[in-house]
């Protein structure tokens, strides 16, 4: 019995350690490059509303904004963290009252949104499309509070008028990195690793494929894209395995849109001495010699922008704000020593063409089929 107790203590300690490390996150030092580009772009994109905010500057201090994370937590190195950075910027720049509530399980969404409402928040952010249903319900129960959701459009059928959708045209940076991959590949074969199939990840996959095709047409050669899914957003080992098999079958560049899975993809590129392309934020810090570029999706710029609109008293509900290259909320990092100036400048030209509407990157399979023609 005594032995049992000892064993119990040891195992329990192990279990606690495991469970805690599971929810813990790592440092935030990583955001450097992505942030610096974002800083300038956010400033540019919000110039219009700055006049409005200065007149309502006194209001901003009392303006309570709460954010509810999805199960990734606030240190997820991805959109939760980025959104929180956006709100912290707001606190610094105009003194808004911001805070967050972390969700540990999916069943926490409803109670956490309710708690945020109890705090007398005027604007509540839900991060991630998994929260769409809960946001719709919470908004119905609290018609006086504005709700906004990242990565999910406003849907008049399931959501009341006080919900705002925030979407990104992720196909645009994906198209640009696809173009860069097409220009850079030597083997004529590149890879794509997705997380779990959904409309959001489709934007990345088909934007990327179209970008590769565009480069192939320009170079008058054939480039194939090998696309695979990890069925996870967290399994780094699986990402590594998929990327390894892609590299050994002849791919020399792999782009990922798979959250934590991508850490494994980048690791595999580092081991094989090949290239990986990062996503959401500038992931060059993970392997400076192997991350060719990153498809930036600057969630914090959008969060700041929409929040400022709300603070300025503009009506934001019942619609979807879409952010892309023209809003400077997506793009590629300025660091480009791995691809060289020629490719980088060509990529910037492609960006200009997307901005002017000459190229419309496809966001799903059907548009992609049309794009080829």
């Amino acid at each position: 019995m005594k032995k049992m107790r000892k064993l119990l203590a040891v195992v329990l300690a192990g279990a606690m350690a495991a469970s805690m490390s599971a929810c813990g996150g790592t440092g935030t030092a990583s955001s450097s490059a992505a942030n610096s580009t974002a800083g300038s772009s956010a400033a540019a994109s919000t110039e219009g509303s700055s006049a409005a905010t200065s007149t309502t500057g006194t209001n901003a201090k009392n303006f309570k904004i709460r954010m509810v994370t999805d199960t990734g937590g606030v240190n997820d190195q991805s959109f939760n963290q980025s959104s929180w950075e956006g709100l912290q910027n707001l606190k610094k720049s105009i003194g808004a009252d911001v805070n967050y509530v972390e969700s540990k399980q999916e069943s926490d969404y409803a109670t956490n949104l309710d708690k945020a409402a109890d705090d007398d928040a005027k604007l509540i952010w839900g991060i991630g499309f998994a929260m769409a249903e809960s946001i719709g319900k919470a908004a119905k129960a609290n018609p006086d509070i504005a709700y906004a959701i990242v990565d999910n459009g406003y849907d008049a059928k399931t959501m009341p008028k006080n919900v705002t959708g925030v979407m990104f045209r992720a196909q645009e940076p994906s198209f640009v990195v696809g173009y860069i991959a097409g220009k850079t590949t030597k083997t004529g074969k590149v890879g794509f690793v997705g997380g779990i199939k959904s409309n959001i990840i489709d934007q990345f996959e088909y934007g990327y494929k179209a970008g590769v095709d565009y480069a192939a047409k320009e170079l008058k050669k054939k480039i194939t894209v090998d696309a695979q899914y990890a069925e996870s957003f967290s399994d780094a080992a699986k990402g590594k395995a998929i990327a390894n098999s892609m590299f050994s079958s002849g791919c020399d560049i792999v782009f990922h849109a798979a959250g934590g899975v991508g850490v494994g993809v980048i690791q595999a590129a580092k081991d094989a001495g090949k290239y990986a392309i990062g996503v959401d934020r500038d992931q060059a810090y993970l392997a400076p010699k192997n991350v060719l570029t990153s498809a930036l999706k600057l969630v914090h710029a959008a969060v700041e922008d929409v929040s400022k609109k709300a603070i300025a008293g503009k009506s934001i509900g019942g619609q979807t704000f879409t952010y892309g290259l023209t809003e400077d909320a997506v793009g590629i990092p300025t660091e480009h020593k791995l691809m060289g100036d020629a490719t980088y400048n060509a990529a910037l030209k492609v960006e200009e063409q997307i901005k002017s509407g000459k190229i419309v990157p496809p966001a799903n399979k059907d548009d992609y089929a049309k794009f080829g023609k």
Partner: protein
Amino acid sequence: MEKTAKILKKPITSTIIAIVCGFAVAAIVLAVAGYNPGSAFGALFSGIFSRPKYISNVIIKATPITLTALSVAFAYKVGLFNIGAEGQYIVGAVAANIVGYLCNFPPVIEIPLVILAGMVAGALWGGIVGLLKAKFGIHEVLTSIMLNWIAFYFSNLVVNSAAFHQPNSTAAYPVNASSYTMLLPNWKTSDAGMAAMSGTKWLREVMLKTDVNFGFLIAIAAAVFIWMLLYRSRKGYELRAVGLNHDAAEFAGIPVNKNIVITMLIAGALAGLAAALAITGTNPHRISTLSAFENNGFNGLSVAFIAGSSPIGCIFAGLLFGGLLYGGQSIQANIGAPSEIINIMIGTIVFFVALTAVVPKLAVRLEKRGMRNAK
């Protein structure tokens, strides 16, 4: 002196000392991190008690961990360490979700069916562990840790399978509404229900803003049942004998191996019950892709330990733990202290409970000193 010794010998005393020490350490950590411990604990308690709906949420949060704790505590009484409650919970949730989604009978049939599915799956998962231990003597800790991971990936496999995956989400299809175990799920959102509740604000808050459900009542019933089984039945006497010394039990003619299998079946069923009640009783009524263990089973270990593996104690320890988990978020939301603080506090409490073996020894020493002084 003798009185102090007597109080110290009671198991509840050491638990309370452990909890007080846990709060003390958390206060030190908070102070070092630059937060006022007083306002932090104020936020914690107001996050638990200040509104009726918060209390309701604590009870909802406490339901699954009370049942998984019961699973662990029951197995522990028979000398088995059920670290596999986590995996048993996961397979229970998968089975309940699948059955609740595929079948759509009237609630009187549907609810027992879904709950039974969860219990059977959990029992099966626990039974494998028991069988391997009884037949081949493989240690239950090893097998159940492995089965936890198998359950984890099995759950993700089901969530992502074409048959159950809800497109554009990270989750499976939810169960049918006929399997809901909330209090009057249809009436409360109907016009008649709204009208009846409009007068009492707290009732409206509890009913509409929380998933108040029958789960905790079932958890209490299960705790009483396990207590009766252990202490008021012949079978329970056998089981406890196996737990105390299984060689002696075998010598006394008690079928040890059979009892080990039975124990693990029941323990697994309890964890499965926890999962089924969570699926039927709380939003979003479905399983979703797991990126890490949700700790429903592992938290049960801590709760069982705080309760000193007493079945009835699990109810109170479960409520304490549920309160810390739910109220702990208010510390973050109100004063900005990281929610990790609450994890440190929980860890410290469990740590001190592990140390409480010291307390009865202290009592013995006090007694001795008392006797010496008397002479």
